[in-house]
């Protein structure tokens, strides 16, 4: 059966060159980077080269890069770390309603500990207003965290504008850039961010490794103890092969980005137009300020998981903001924050492309989708145009 992977927001296939770069560190270069003998020094060199590549891709300094086990950890270290380091200065944090749970739940946990957390609303497109950020900042504010691009609808946030505001007001600014690497220009100075999280597997690197950019001078208090690795901000024997993979992946991600992006966009537009030609559909997320590979569409009268399963049986992998895919009861907090009603949220489908997709794959998806939707609608008790 033909297999079509359109869930690149969940994870991506690893680039062959990334695996090739990792291979020595999975076999004969196995030293611990903390060891001073030749085995250790070879591993150390590889880690530091990856750090340089990561810094170069983001426009920062190598010593500003901390490798982690992923963006979840990077987000937690950033949010909790700043909160704890600056709690004497103030105990107010600002974030948005559409952040990843790693950010949102870390903030909520701090709220339970006595911090004040302002969760800013978003508009119907999932966009936060820089104005709202500015208005929310008080003398007590120590941290603002706004994602660079949303991982469900792909809406790209005005992070540079918010960064400017935060800098003027002297507030530390963190952005979760997980979905943006390789598809948007990500430069820590242009964005005026102090902290930035990323995860290698979202841009054709390995799973289980990420990075946190920490601008020089940014104070973080850590809660994880052990060795002196990563300037003590992230102790534990380094995932050498993973870090090398991240370095290679980010280097490849920013190479020829525009060409890749315009190819992805062309496929995306074809997919979007085709799907929207099915009746009772609507696009979720911002029509323009959106990641190039994102199509999030709601199909009225049908539930997301049933569409995922139906597509899966045709070899097509997508995801949904429906509660049924997460095991929780409520549909996606992102779609709800955008004001969608429950039915529309439950009927959402997220199709996310990468450079590995082809136009033939898009054609294939468009050829099977109408039938699938029709079949499920025919079963639906809420579908008005019965049988």
């Amino acid at each position, binding site marked *: 059966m033909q297999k079509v992977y359109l869930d690149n927001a969940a994870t991506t296939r690893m680039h062959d060159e990334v695996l090739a770069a990792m291979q020595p560190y999975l076999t004969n270069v196995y030293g611990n980077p903390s060891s001073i003998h030749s085995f250790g020094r070879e591993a150390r060199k590889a880690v530091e080269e990856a750090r340089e590549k990561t810094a170069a891709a983001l426009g920062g300094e190598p010593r500003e890069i901390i490798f982690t086990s992923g963006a979840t950890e990077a987000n937690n270290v950033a949010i909790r770390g700043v909160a704890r380091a600056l709690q004497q200065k103030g105990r107010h944090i600002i974030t948005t309603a559409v952040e990843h749970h790693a950010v949102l739940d870390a903030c909520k946990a701090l709220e339970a500990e006595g911090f004040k957390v302002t969760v800013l609303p978003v508009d119907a497109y999932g966009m936060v207003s820089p104005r709202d950020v500015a208005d929310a900042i008080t003398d007590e504010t120590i941290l603002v965290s706004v994602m660079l691009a949303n991982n469900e609808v792909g809406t790209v946030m005005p992070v540079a504008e918010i960064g400017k505001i935060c800098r003027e007001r002297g507030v530390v600014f963190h952005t979760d850039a997980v979905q943006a690497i390789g598809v948007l220009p990500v430069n820590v100075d242009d964005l005026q961010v102090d902290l930035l999280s990323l995860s290698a597997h979202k841009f054709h690197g390995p799973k289980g490794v990420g990075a946190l950019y920490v601008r020089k001078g940014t104070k973080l208090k850590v809660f994880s103890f052990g060795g002196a690795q990563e300037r003590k901000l992230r102790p534990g024997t380094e995932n050498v092969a993973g870090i090398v993979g991240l370095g290679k992946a980010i280097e490849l991600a920013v190479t020829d980005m525009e060409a890749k992006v315009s190819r992805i966009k062309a496929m995306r537009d074809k997919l979007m137009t085709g799907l929207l030609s099915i009746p009772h559909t609507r696009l979720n997320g911002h029509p323009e300020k959106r990641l190039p590979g994102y199509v999030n569409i709601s199909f009225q*009268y*049908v*539930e*997301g*998981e*049933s569409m995922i*399963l*139906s597509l899966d*049986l045709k070899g097509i992998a997508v995801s949904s903001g*429906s*509660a*049924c*895919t997460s*095991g929780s*009861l*409520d*549909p996606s907090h992102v779609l709800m924050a955008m004001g969608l*009603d*429950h*039915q529309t949220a*439950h009927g959402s489908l997220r199709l996310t492309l990468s450079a590995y997709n082809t136009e033939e794959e898009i054609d294939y998806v468009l050829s099977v989708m109408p039938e699938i939707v029709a079949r499920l609608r*025919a*079963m*639906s*008790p*809420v579908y008005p145009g*019965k*049988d």
Partner: protein
Amino acid sequence: MYSEKVMDHFMNPRNVGEIENADGIGEVGNMKCGDIMRIYLKVSDQEVIEDIKFRTFGCGAAIATSSAITEMVKGKTLAEAWEISNKQVAEELGGLPESKMHCSNLAADALKRAIEDYRSRKAQQEA
């Protein structure tokens, strides 16, 4: 994730549709949770389920359990049908993922509502 039996019921659901002039209709679930099941009954004078149909908005488990229960109770008496639990439906399907046991496994409840609807209509007619 789902058993083969679930997938079979999901892809080839039995008894989808409506019954015109049904003797009883039951609906459970709500849009918040993303599952709505409606069951239609045709009941004989001997209180045997002669025909049963369903419509469901929901995930694979919701559709499969709806389909499965219609097969389980067709030809049964209302008294027998009333005894069927959501758990039995899940067992009939070779089990369901744990996360689906609560929100999407409501077919027996929908059937009970339909039987209740049938009974209250009957009571009204007789009154």
